[in-house]
């Protein structure tokens, strides 16, 4: 017990484990493990044959964290920022990674990007399809119900929230429409009074 000096006998003897578990103890020596010690200075063993890499040409003013002294010599070129989301993203990169604004702006831009892209795809004649893009058809091919029911899954208990979040915008629009349809507007009153 923890209340006494000796460790409680919680584990079986090592020789038993060695005979039962394939590979038990092959990396037993804590000092003989690949990332021990954590920092090992081996600048010549990485394959790099430069002190500082050549610089990749930038095809647009590349967004960069102010916590970097300069644009890193190599960077990704997927999805240049564009539209409203792009403007927000570029603005977000004025803030350091230590600032919550940086991340919240980026998350907001992500949501706007989705809306912009949906319209863009429609205009380009390649509209988004909820049915195909969510892969929801696999529910029928891959035992959606059988996978979830009767297995003590924790996530099944709160899946109703997903339904609610999914339905929320539609419910809001319907409620709004009903409200305006039944409200006594001046225009309606004039029509009715005539």
């Amino acid at each position, binding site marked *: 017990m*923890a209340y006494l000096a000796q460790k*409680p006998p*919680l*584990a079986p003897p*090592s020789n038993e484990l060695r005979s*039962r*578990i394939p*590979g*038990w*103890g*092959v*990396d*037993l020596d804590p000092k003989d493990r*690949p*990332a021990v010690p*954590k920092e090992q*200075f*081996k600048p010549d063993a*990485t*394959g*790099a044959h430069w002190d500082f*890499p*050549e610089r*990749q*040409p930038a095809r647009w003013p590349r*967004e960069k*964290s102010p*916590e*970097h002294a300069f644009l*890193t*010599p*190599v*960077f990704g070129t*997927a999805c240049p920022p564009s539209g409203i989301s792009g403007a927000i993203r570029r603005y*977000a990169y004025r803030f350091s*990674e230590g600032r919550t604004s940086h*991340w*919240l702006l*980026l*998350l907001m831009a*992500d949501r706007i990007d*989705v809306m912009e*892209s949906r319209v863009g*795809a429609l205009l380009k004649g390649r509209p*988004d*399809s*909820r049915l195909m*893009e969510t*892969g*929801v058809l*696999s*529910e029928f091919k891959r035992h959606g119900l059988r996978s979830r029911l009767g*297995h*003590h*899954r*924790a*996530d099944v*208990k*709160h899946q109703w929230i*997903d339904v609610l979040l999914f339905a929320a915008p539609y419910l809001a629009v319907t409620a709004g429409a009903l409200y305006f349809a039944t409200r006594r507007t001046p225009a309606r009153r004039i029509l009715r009074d005539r």
Partner: protein
Amino acid sequence: MQAMVYRGPCRVRVENKEKPAIEHPNDAIVRVTCAAICGSDLHLYHGLMPDTRVGMTFGHEFVGVVDEVGPSVQNVRPGDRVMVPFNICCGSCYFCARELYSCCHNVNPNASAVGGIYGYSHTCGGYDGGQAEYVRVPFADVGPTAIPDWMEEEDAVLLTDACPTGYQGAEMGSIKEGDVVVVFGAGPVGLFAAKSSWLMGAGRVIVIDHLDYRLEKAREFAHAETINFTQVDDIVLHLKKLTDYLGADVCIDAVGAEADGSFWQVVSNNKLKLQGGSPVALNWAIDSVRKAGTVSVVGAYGPLFSAVKFGDVMNKGLTIRSAQCSVKRHWPRLFQHVKNGVLKPSAIVTHRVPLNEIAEGYHIMASKLDECVKSLVYTSPH
């Protein structure tokens, strides 16, 4: 070329994209033959990672054939079969020089707090990933390695991320002979962490999850004891009793940002995305480990804040170790283990989907349908 493309939370599709081009003298273009969907991809898929742009191609676990190389590339040639670590790294910065490849400082202008990762949002550098027919591989002289003749392709894919990550998870636990190790999460990373814990001499390995079929995998593949946390009243207390009220010597969080098990954490994080990750498993790890023990965190969290019980870390005098795996420094040892039959990474693969059905592949993985543990993606009919 055909490529998986992100269209917004829970939506992906295959599009015709331009084949990537050499953009830097040390780039290579790799024709992908096999890729995988990682638990990390699910965080992007669910819209949790800031600066995940519509149109990005995901995929940081892949192997393939070198198709083209830039003028300064010396170590690989067109035609070589290569495996590519998920870290993009320069090999020459402060961090790479110390073998901390996941911390490379020369490849990610978007953030200084993380290195570069293929297909992992702009926060990780804005690189397209390998769930596509072709991918741009920067620093071809540093990252990719020829797949040894004796190694099977599916083992090689799992060695680009999941397997070394699990191994590093155990390694960061500083496991000593006879230690009690508790692994939270029986996904690919957790399974490899559990298996690796034995290699380092653990005395008991206990795996926690809520998916019975994955726990069965943990018993069979990783020879672990298992607990379904929905079947006990209080997992922390349960583990204390199991360890004679001492607590585990080492806890490994192999769950990360979308941990289940607490209604409010799930609502505030997974559903409303108001946290940088639901730290349910992390908090359980902190509370289940013994005082002065070690918590190793390989589960991924976003850059926003999370409601972590840090007071307990402090009061208990815990050591917290954490990292994105530095894949390549683990390869020599792991290659040896695979060759000697100590490890069989591909044993956890349950699904193989063609690239053009990737939307269903993601849904199956995300919703844990059909007893899915690990899904591979094939670019040509398989």
